[in-house]
């Protein structure tokens, strides 16, 4: 990876990633509106473009052209940099994600730890947004968000840890490569080690809370907090918050696929006569990234379905779910992983 040290190439990769994330966010918002519409027996956006396809593009254009409104009582500097920090922390997380063997901008040998660490910077940005707005609803939302994200990072980390004990590495590339094999689906971590299925459920519940999505959307509760920490934001800065939310959904889903569901490998077993891609690195990259993103987008759609099905939990229920159910079960799963590894070593 000598070329990667050239700064221009890094900028290019960043540009491609930003373009990809922005396009995905546009499609994601559109999908979310359509999913919610169909669940509620509505049509959703229909006017702008065929079937309303350009609605979100028109919306983002409108947001970009809007005035930057800064409340006069706000802390101007905190208010301005908070959305950037929130988005950048998520965006930086993508740098360590291997989309296919070798297709990674920052091949770190502690990639999983890096991603978890850099995402938690988002909390600082949210607190800055809430505090800098100098608005009681924004502050309550920010405080709720911080308490929620910090609590739910523990079960998420425990669930990932129980998988890490089985893989024995934090390097996302190696975790991905371990799940390769001629039997496709059967080599995925969640299938090879069945106790990782409840671990995935814990992780999935926790990432719903970390991305502040329903049923854990207390920080943004429209009905009680007027959208919480981004009450005072408008225009481009609001767009950044939305972009960060959707990017975070994708990033955490990609992480789930990498660790639990076979990374970039297809679920189809090797059938004799299938084209052999080895040697064509570009083709491997395309098919790998396709499978990885396809599986991740499935999880994103699942998160949307959950949002439009489950009502918001109460704060006490939020804490009960985390501390009385997810954390103890997560610890139990790590214990199972540890026993499994012990048995494997001594037999």
């Amino acid at each position: 990876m000598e070329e990667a040290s050239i700064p221009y190439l890094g900028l290019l990769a960043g540009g491609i990633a930003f373009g990809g994330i922005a396009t995905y966010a546009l499609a994601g918002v559109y999908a979310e509106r359509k999913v919610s519409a169909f669940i509620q027996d509505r049509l959703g956006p229909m006017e702008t473009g065929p079937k309303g396809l350009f609605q979100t593009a028109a919306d983002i254009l409108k947001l970009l052209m809007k005035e930057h409104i800064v409340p006069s009582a706000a802390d101007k500097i905190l208010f301005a940099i908070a959305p950037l920090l929130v988005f950048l922390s998520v965006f930086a997380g993508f740098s360590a994600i291997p989309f296919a063997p070798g297709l990674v901008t920052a091949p770190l040998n502690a990639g999983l730890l890096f991603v978890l660490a850099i995402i938690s910077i988002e909390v600082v940005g949210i607190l800055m947004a809430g505090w800098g707005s100098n608005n009681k609803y924004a502050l309550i939302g920010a405080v709720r968000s911080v308490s929620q994200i910090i609590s739910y990072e523990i079960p998420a980390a425990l669930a990932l840890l129980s998988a890490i004990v089985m893989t024995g590495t934090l390097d996302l590339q190696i975790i991905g490569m371990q799940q390769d094999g001629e039997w496709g689906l059967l080599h995925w971590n969640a299938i090879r080690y069945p106790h990782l299925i409840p671990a995935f459920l814990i992780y999935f519940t926790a990432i719903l809370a970390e991305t502040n999505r329903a049923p854990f959307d207390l920080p943004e509760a429209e009905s009680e907090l007027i959208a919480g920490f981004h009450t005072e934001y408008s225009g481009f800065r609001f767009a950044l918050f939305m972009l960060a939310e959707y990017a975070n959904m994708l990033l955490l889903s990609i992480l789930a696929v990498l660790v639990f569901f076979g990374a970039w490998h297809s679920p189809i077993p090797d059938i004799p006569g299938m084209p052999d891609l080895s040697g064509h690195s570009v083709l491997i990259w395309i098919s790998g990234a396709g499978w990885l993103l396809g599986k991740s987008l499935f999880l994103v759609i699942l998160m949307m379905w959950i949002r439009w099905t489950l009502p918001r939990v109460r704060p006490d229920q939020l804490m009960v779910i985390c501390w009385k159910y997810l954390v103890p079960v997560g610890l139990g799963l790590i214990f199972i992983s540890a026993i499994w590894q012990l048995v494997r070593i001594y037999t």
Partner: protein
Amino acid sequence: MASLFIQWLKPIGSVIRSFRLGFGLTWSHFKKGNKRQKPKGIADPDYFQQSEGLVTIQYPHEQIPVPDQGRYRLHMETEDCIVCDQCARICPVDCITIEGIKTTDDLGLTSDGTKKKLYLPTFDIDMAKCCYCGLCTTVCPTECLTMTKVYDFSETDRDAFTYHYGNLSPEEAKVKQQEAEALEEARKAAKLAASKASA
């Protein structure tokens, strides 16, 4: 200890049950997302039969048919008006303005056989003011003022909501007005002469 554990387990069952119920419900609606309910009016025999599919009606492109007896925009049949001014007087928001000119010309009969005695230069209905109470249509003795089923008649200019009816152009109205004034003068003069003669 064991009872505590059972207590801890208890909510899990109800969570799973309510998850199955909730996701089953939303999925059953989601998978019907390719079906549409048709814009059928209340008069349609299938009106109450459409139980599934998306309910949205894309309004300007699709409209639910209104029954023929729908009571929305006012319509005036100028030929039938006898200029009795009852509609203008009963209107609670004063949206009807009527002027009449007396004449000795033969104006003919309305469709129900009432004799017309007045010219109608102005009959303005300001639909922007109208509150659709329908009182004007009930008092109208010749049934010339009716409500129609047209309900979609928005305008960009408020003045366009004033609908003009009448059977005279402004120029004709001026002439007829003068004739009526001359007639009145003549009548007054005749009356004066008659009273003088009797005295």
